[in-house]
């Protein structure tokens, strides 16, 4: 037995001339909440379908619970799927829908009934078993789809953007509920989403995908705070990018000259030489804004625009001719939220380790 619930070994999938998945290797631990995150067309859904068996890889191997899947059809794989559109059987009652998997596995009738009722209880839909899918709301149908999959106690539950069709409030509530449910049942979840906030909220680990490749794989914190490249930094959350060249490389601290005029301090990195072109990535919420420079590392700028969004006030600050940065200040207190009106000269400050040096 392998310790991995799912093991993807150098998987490639071609659709005619299109390369949907390009040689990815992913190892998903038992009991993990794992997310495949990326924009549409990045290959995340194809990856999920390769695990489910709806597609077979052009090259590479899929292991589920240590078993090589080869060309095993979906109905012989120990996984279940929650589909994006739920795909409930419209001609069957909720009871029949949830019982379908057990029925196909020829589970005895006396065992089926309590398990169906338990499953509906688990997704908080007791007493709905006689209804038809079209008599339920979107959120309720989503729960039925979850119950229909979980009742089979799969090794791995695959979820294909299951919350995509729900409105924001319901989606946020369901995110927490899904996470709690996953803890309770202890089943490995593989979750496909394009919503970075959703992935950060729920996942133990995230694989960020683009153009069929995994760009970064790690915990939500790693991915957010230490993005491996510009794409990840840009896709996850909001980031300011400052283009420049390395000026001096001391033992502890480097200085990057942004647009050739503005020195920015960073902790020393590895494998970079003086005069090399780099990008400095810095999150808007990690920047503080001051009238007087708090220390010698502070960067001067002029407030160009102020946007009040309720929880935050966002300042667009011009640093050089070519570079503007967004600064986000949380509105902790009550009172005038806009402390630095447009046109005011300010100084921006951040801890050197908050900035990230990217070569790509």
């Amino acid at each position: 037995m392998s310790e991995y619930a799912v093991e993807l070994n150098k998987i490639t999938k071609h659709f005619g001339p299109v390369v949907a998945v390009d040689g990815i290797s992913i190892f998903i631990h038992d009991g993990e909440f794992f997310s495949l995150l990326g924009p549409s067309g990045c290959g995340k859904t194809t990856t999920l379908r390769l695990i489910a068996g709806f597609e077979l890889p052009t090259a590479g191997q899929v292991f589920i619970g240590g078993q090589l899947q080869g060309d095993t059809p979906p109905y012989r794989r120990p996984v279940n799927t929650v589909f994006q559109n739920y795909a409930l059987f419209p001609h069957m009652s909720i009871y029949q829908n949830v019982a379908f998997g057990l029925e196909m596995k020829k589970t005895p009738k006396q065992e089926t009934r309590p398990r169906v009722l338990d499953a509906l209880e688990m997704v908080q839909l007791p007493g709905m078993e006689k209804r038809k899918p079209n008599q339920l709301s979107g959120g309720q149908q989503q729960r039925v789809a979850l119950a229909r999959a979980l009742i089979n106690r799969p090794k791995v539950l695959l979820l294909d953007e299951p919350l995509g069709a729900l409105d924001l409030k319901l989606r946020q509530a369901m995110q927490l509920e899904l996470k709690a449910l996953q803890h309770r049942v202890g089943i490995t979840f593989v979750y496909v989403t394009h919503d970075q906030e959703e992935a950060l909220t729920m996942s133990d680990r995230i694989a960020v995908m683009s153009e069929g490749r995994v760009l970064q794989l790690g915990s939500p914190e790693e991915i957010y705070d230490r993005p491996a490249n510009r794409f990840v930094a840009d896709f996850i959350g909001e980031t300011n990018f400052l283009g420049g060249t390395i000026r001096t490389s001391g033992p502890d601290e480097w200085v990057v000259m942004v647009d050739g005029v503005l020195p920015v301090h960073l902790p020393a990195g590895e494998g970079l030489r003086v005069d090399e072109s780099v990008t400095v990535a810095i999150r808007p919420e990690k920047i503080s804004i001051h009238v007087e420079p708090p220390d010698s590392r502070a960067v001067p700028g002029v407030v160009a625009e102020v946007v009040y969004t309720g929880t935050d006030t966002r300042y667009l600050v011009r640093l050089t001719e070519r570079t503007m940065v967004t600064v986000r200040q949380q509105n902790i207190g009550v009172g005038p939220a806009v402390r630095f009106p447009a046109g005011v000269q300010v100084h921006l400050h951040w801890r050197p380790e908050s900035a990230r040096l990217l070569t790509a």
Partner: protein
Amino acid sequence: MLPRSRRETTRLLFLISPSLFWLTLFFVLPLLLVFAISFGQRGTYGGVRWNLTLENYGRFLDPLYLRIFGRTIVIALTTTLICLLAGYPLAYFIATRPARWRNSLLLLLMIPFWTNFLIRTYAWLLILRDHGLINTLWTGVLHNFMLWAAAAVPLPLWDPLVSATASPLPLFGSNLAIIIGLVYGWLPDMVLPCYAAIERFDFSLVEAAQDLYANRRKTFLRVILPLTMPGIVAGSILVFIPSLGAYVTPDLLGGAKSVMIGNVIYSQFMSARDYPFGSAISLVLMAVMLIGTLLYFRLGTENEVN
């Protein structure tokens, strides 16, 4: 239904009055006429004597007519079944092609039916008769091959084959010929409703079923079939009803031996000039169609999504 004001009712009646008028003129009145005649008696010179009698319905119970009626039902049911077994897979095939192919494939299906029905049935006559296409090959090419094979390799197994191919197959004038003609004639009426149902079918449900351990057979029986049942019901009715009342096909392909109830009705009106008996048979046929259709509809809609 919501309660309607008197004014609104009047307005609606006014709006449907044109169709009501034509329906009454061309459908209700003729039907009432047939109904009335069926209780009359054949006049000496072919007219109708209007004396109320059930004699015509009694005559229908004659084993001769019952046998023809029974054969008609069997032929119509067989035709429907074959159309279903051939038409559903064809509809499935067309509906699962890429969208840009579907209309062309449907067109290919329809093109032969732009030719007159009578001519197409005659074509089958030329194929099926004793000196037709099939039997020319059977008694010519195949028979000669058997003779040649028997001469080349003398084995007893050739003897029955030689004698079988010596005389033509009795295709023409058989129930089989009628069924072939009817299946050919009504196949598109099965394919089109099935196609419409399958085309509407959400194939993500197939993946859902497979994901829940249903193999291909179970997926078809439990998910695809029940959800495309409305198409099957509609197609079956569209094939069964014209087959039951078929007249041209058995007349041309059935010869004198295989007669269907449609031919009996025709001969009562046109040769025997017994309008009352012909009317009575027509009404019995209609009643059977109506009851059959209603039963079948109920069967089909039980599975349907509400």
